[in-house]
């Protein structure tokens, strides 16, 4: 039994750090700090730079131009990017591309994978609809056969990244006569297609997401991924890839370390915040919780490298990470006192307002990507073998 990284893995981490030290300059940092999670021109250029270095395909098999690195190495890589809030294409790289490799035709693979690898192509997820959230199979968007094409009509919401992505990965109903989750198919097509309208929706934190309207959008039959009416399975495959990356600890560890430094530095009533035993106890509790999450992340990554599927582990990671993000932000702000409420860019904002940004994002972390309630169902039913309701 050994919980340590190997010397090669540590060297790999140093290599990434050196690369980031060299290439993440103040201008990019500023852009990231003010972009509200929409990658600006510098971030897009940086994504292509990662592509040039071959790092976008870090976890892809070598047959597809990837580096075939282990999941532990991928975890190291994404942690280092997360620590600097670097945009690396997220799900396009870690989930959708992997699903394409598994389910797409050879022609589709040739069409998409090389461009994803170069950082030229980004795909947003078109799953959620106004009436279909956790109960995704109830979705209404229709794709009707029209000669060689499909005609797609409907509405998607919370289509995060639709305003900067090139393509959409869309789940639509192709067979209304079949039982609801057996009549769905996945399509991938450019957002620039005629009939697609992307409108902004702003979250409580001012972050942009989108609603996407589809009005008789012509999509060739060759844009369908996998067999007709197998879309729900395709989504399940993509989710299995996605879930492994959903709950991460590195940013939480960074925020905690910065919070701790603030507590040592700030004084209240003539003593540092740290000297208050109540503050110490809260910080100790957070520290233990972050360590538990770190260990679970290690376990999931290690299991993947052993050829095992971390089902309950990945779901638990997502639950723990999101709830801990909210707790760390909320408790941290309160520990810091009135300054804790100050946003990025405000005078006197501690930690460059990071806890406030985290607090504003945290509700989404809990319900997004499969709500924590769905994740707990997965742990209970697939992990513990409890019966379905």
């Amino acid at each position, binding site marked *: 039994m050994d*919980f340590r990284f190997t010397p090669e893995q540590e060297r790999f981490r140093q290599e990434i750090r050196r690369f980031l030290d060299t290439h993440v300059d103040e201008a990019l940092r500023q852009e990231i700090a003010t972009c509200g999670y929409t990658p600006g021109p510098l971030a897009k250029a940086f994504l292509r730079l990662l592509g040039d270095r071959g790092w976008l395909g870090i976890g892809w098999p070598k047959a597809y131009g990837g580096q075939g690195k282990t999941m532990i190495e991928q975890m190291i890589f994404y942690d280092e990017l997360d620590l600097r809030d670097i945009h690396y294409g997220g799900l396009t790289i870690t989930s959708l591309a992997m699903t394409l490799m598994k389910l797409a035709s050879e022609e589709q693979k040739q069409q998409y994978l090389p461009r994803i690898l170069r950082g030229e192509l980004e795909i947003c997820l078109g799953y959620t609809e106004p009436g279909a959230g956790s109960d995704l199979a109830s979705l209404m968007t229709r794709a009707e056969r029209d000669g060689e094409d499909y005609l797609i009509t409907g509405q998607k919401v919370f289509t995060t990244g639709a305003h900067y992505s090139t393509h959409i990965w869309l789940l639509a109903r192709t067979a209304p006569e079949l039982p609801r989750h057996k009549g769905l198919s996945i399509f991938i097509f450019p957002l620039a297609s005629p009939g697609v309208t992307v409108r902004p929706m702003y979250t409580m934190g001012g972050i942009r997401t989108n609603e996407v309207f589809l009005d008789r959008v012509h999509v060739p039959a060759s844009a369908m991924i996998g067999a007709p009416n197998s879309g729900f399975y395709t989504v399940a495959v993509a989710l299995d890839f996605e879930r492994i990356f959903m709950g991460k600890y590195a940013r939480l560890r960074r925020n905690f370390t910065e919070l701790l430094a603030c507590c040592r530095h700030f004084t209240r009533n003539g003593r540092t915040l740290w000297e208050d035993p109540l503050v*110490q106890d809260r910080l100790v509790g957070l520290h*233990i919780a972050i360590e*538990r999450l770190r260990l679970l992340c290690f*376990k999931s990554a290690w299991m993947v490298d052993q050829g095992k599927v971390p089902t309950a582990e990945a*779901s638990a990671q997502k639950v723990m990470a999101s709830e801990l993000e909210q707790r760390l932000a909320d408790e941290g702000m309160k520990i810091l006192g009135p300054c804790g409420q100050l946003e990025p860019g405000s005078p006197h904002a501690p930690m460059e307002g990071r806890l406030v940004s985290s607090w504003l994002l945290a509700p989404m972390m809990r319900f997004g990507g499969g709500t924590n*309630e769905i994740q707990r169902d997965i742990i209970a039913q697939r992990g*513990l073998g409890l*019966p*379905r309701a």
Partner: protein
Amino acid sequence: MDLDFNPEQAQIKDAARRFLSRECSPALVRGVREGAPSHPAALWAGMAEQGWLALPFEEAYGGLAAGWVTLAVVIEELGRACDPTPFIDCVVNCGGLIQDLGSDAQKRRWLTALARGELLVSLALLESPSDPDPECIETRLEAEGTGFRVRGRKLFVERAADADLLLVSAREGAGGRMRLVSIAPGAAGVELVRLRSLAHPHLYEVRLEGVMIDGGQVLGEPIDAAPAIAAAMRRSAALHSAAAAGGAQRVLEMAVAHASERHQFGKPIGSFQAVQHMLADVWAEVETARLAAYEAMTELELAGRAVEEKVAIARCASSECFVRTCLTAHQIFGGTGFMWESDLHLWTRKAEEIEFACGGTGRWRRRLAQLL
């Protein structure tokens, strides 16, 4: 990174699981708790036969010189079985201290007997409900003639009445060196007062009213024993977390089994989301507590720089997890688990026993604050 046991450890785990499911039934655990008898001699002899009592000791003294992870494998299984023996106190705490501090003659006499299951030793360290740190020890060791006289009062001594020897910490005069001395519980001037705990069934206050001992009863060389005691407490904390992880895992399994069998509204209660979510949260807690325990064990084995911190995290995380798992299980078992006949409260009490062992987890939480 390798989060699996090696083949030998996996084998020990399987053997331990089989042995304990045969020899350590809930009925036996309940019997020991009720004092009939207070020491399960047959189980203890069986454990000696398995070689478990010899695991941490040097080969020269009849030991097997096993690593900390291997010891944790056995202790995790003991926690799982709600072990009613003094394994951690006698073998890990006392045996470890005798090994670290004892003279060659003392080790030959005590360790070999201990490893064979022929000697029960209890640690008498704590004196007040405070942290087991050296500055809190007031028991005195005063030279008199060719020997010493010991005066003081010890609290939370496990199974003092069953023990052949008590290993007592005492100070050589005010601000003097800490020493460990062995005293028979039946010696003149020793008074045992039974404490009644919801957690540990056999806890005692030990009053030492000027007990005479000879030089051979003082452990090892005249050096300060405080660092060795601190090291022993660290090992003990790490191993208690392995026991807690094992106990919590078992209680989770009991709760899952009950939720799958118990029907209400025509369905197993385990099909209800409210019940599933409680158990899902417990699963995540148990899984991470166990990882924290084994990370602490590997760090102990490597004598790594972060050992104190990893042990503190493991101790806090696993103890809290075990207690919470039991309390959740009580909710899921409902009235069934509330009855005296139910086995569940045996584990719940064990969880609290581990929570309060060696001065409790609060001290490790405070230690963690210092380390931050």
